[in-house]
């Protein structure tokens, strides 16, 4: 019997491969898929008292979510903020990735390491640092006042959606630089020369050749920045103020002080659904555009 299985095992690469993949798949199923499934189920329950949950299935939590304007507003705002974070990060890092890919000749690796190093240093402290920079008594305000340029601190710097976007664009820069750089660096330089030989200007070459070929990197950056930042908690908490509060801050209180697991679960489910929807749409549109361009 054992021989029989050994024979099958030796012959079938798929079984071999999946026995190697087993621990990783078990991990994903036990620690991610089943908890998430349970969360979906919980979103159809009702919190009766502090500890008691009525497990009769109902859509009421979703009705609750959409009947209270603040929830919908926070969801829309979270998506809006993430959209701008992704946009700002892409626009600010693209020239940089372009520069490293095409103009840096020596020590490319060093450039990449230096550009991604800050990403590894404590996320919490980086966000906190922005609070210090933008704060009412912060670095910018105290420096401006000391230099006599302003008398009163500028209050619009912190506790706003702009502050959240700026801080997140800084925190997630590495996730844009790397995929952009990788896709730009792969581009065959002879294609660009061919484009020049055909009489295209530098700008035309960029728009017709370089940019379309870098779109896989752009899509990668969009997905890896847009999806996680929708659920960011620390940044809105530290620099967002009331104007910059996001859905995750609400979810946190539903699982904490407000103690309403089902409504928290429904919020989490809606966050995941809407972010997946936007991600699919964005990828689809970008693919279409890249097909048309090339």
């Amino acid at each position, binding site marked *: 019997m054992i021989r029989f299985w050994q024979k099958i095992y030796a012959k079938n690469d798929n079984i071999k491969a999946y026995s190697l993949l087993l621990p990783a798949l078990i991990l994903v199923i036990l620690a991610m898929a089943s908890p998430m499934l349970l969360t979906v189920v919980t979103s159809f329950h009702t919190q009766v008292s502090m500890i008691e949950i009525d497990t009769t299935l109902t859509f009421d939590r979703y009705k609750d979510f959409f009947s209270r304007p603040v929830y919908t507003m926070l969801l829309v705002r979270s998506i809006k903020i993430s959209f701008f974070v992704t946009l700002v990060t892409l626009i600010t890092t693209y020239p940089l990735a372009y520069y490293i890919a095409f103009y840096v000749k020596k020590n490319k690796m060093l450039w990449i390491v230096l550009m991604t*190093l800050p990403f590894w240093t404590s996320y919490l402290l980086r966000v906190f640092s922005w609070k210090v920079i933008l704060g009412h*008594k912060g670095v910018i305000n105290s420096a401006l006042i000391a230099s006599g340029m302003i008398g009163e601190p500028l209050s619009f710097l912190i506790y706003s959606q702009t502050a959240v976007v700026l801080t997140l664009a800084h925190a997630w820069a590495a996730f844009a630089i790397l995929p952009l750089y990788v896709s730009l660096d792969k581009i065959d330089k002879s294609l660009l020369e061919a484009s020049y030989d055909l009489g295209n200007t530098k700008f035309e070459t960029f728009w017709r050749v370089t940019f379309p070929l870098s779109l896989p990197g752009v899509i990668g950056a969009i997905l890896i920045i847009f999806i996680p930042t929708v659920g960011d908690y620390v940044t809105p908490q530290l620099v967002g103020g009331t104007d910059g509060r996001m859905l995750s801050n609400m979810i946190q209180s539903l699982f904490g002080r407000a103690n309403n*697991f089902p409504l928290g679960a429904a919020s989490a489910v809606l966050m995941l659904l809407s972010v997946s929807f936007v991600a699919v749409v964005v990828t689809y549109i970008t693919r279409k555009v890249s097909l048309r361009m090339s």
Partner: protein
Amino acid sequence: MYNKNNILFFYAIVYFAFLYIPVMLLPVFSFNDAIHMVFPLKGFTLKWYDQMIHSSRLHRALMNSVKVGVIASIFSTFIALLAAKAFTKYKVKLRQLSYGAILLPFVIPEIIIAVSLIVLWTGMGLQLGLVPVTISHILFCTPFCMLVLISRMEGFDRNLEEAAMDLGENAWGTFWRVTFPIALPAIVASLLLSFVISFDEFILAFFLSSQDQTLPLYMWGQLRFPKKLPHVLALGAVIIVATSIIVMLSYWLRNLGSPSDKKSNIGGI
């Protein structure tokens, strides 16, 4: 054609400053002889470092973080090594699906993974604490380790393994005497990087740890109190320097012994 571009170079320098100034600010103020973080700087002092060294709650949080980080990095690297092996050696059926499934925890908003684990954990009647934190960190680090390992294992010559087999090594011997030594720098890099990720991770720990604080949670708790702030800055400065060294080391390891034309191999991240 692409020799110089002063505008882009200038832009790169400006962006570089934008990236580094917020990070460098904390170490600068950690030596400042004042409680509030305002310019101009008052004077040089080491007292915040002294305060940091003598905080027993900080020590406990540090030990918790190290415990979680070491266990999470070992488990995630091991799980990722097996998966990387499967993806680089075999033509796996449903490759995209399983690859995507394993990478998913890295992309999904952490808060969703965190609350789902709360629902599961409390649903099973278990106490939150460092155990669910560690599990969530293993889940979060594994995709990352896998990318690091795959980028290394894709590069090397499969003939070496076949040669070992032909010379009479069994599968285990081949793995142990050929594959493992070749992948070793990447394995160490994966251990180091996943440790850094776990060590810095805030959201999962924030939701799942209950009473047992990890270091980021300790810092979070102190940020609210202005008087406690300076010693958090000192701690932050130490963390920044230590993680930078670890990350540099792991980048160096990942390029160790790879062919020179693949020196800029940064696959995955």
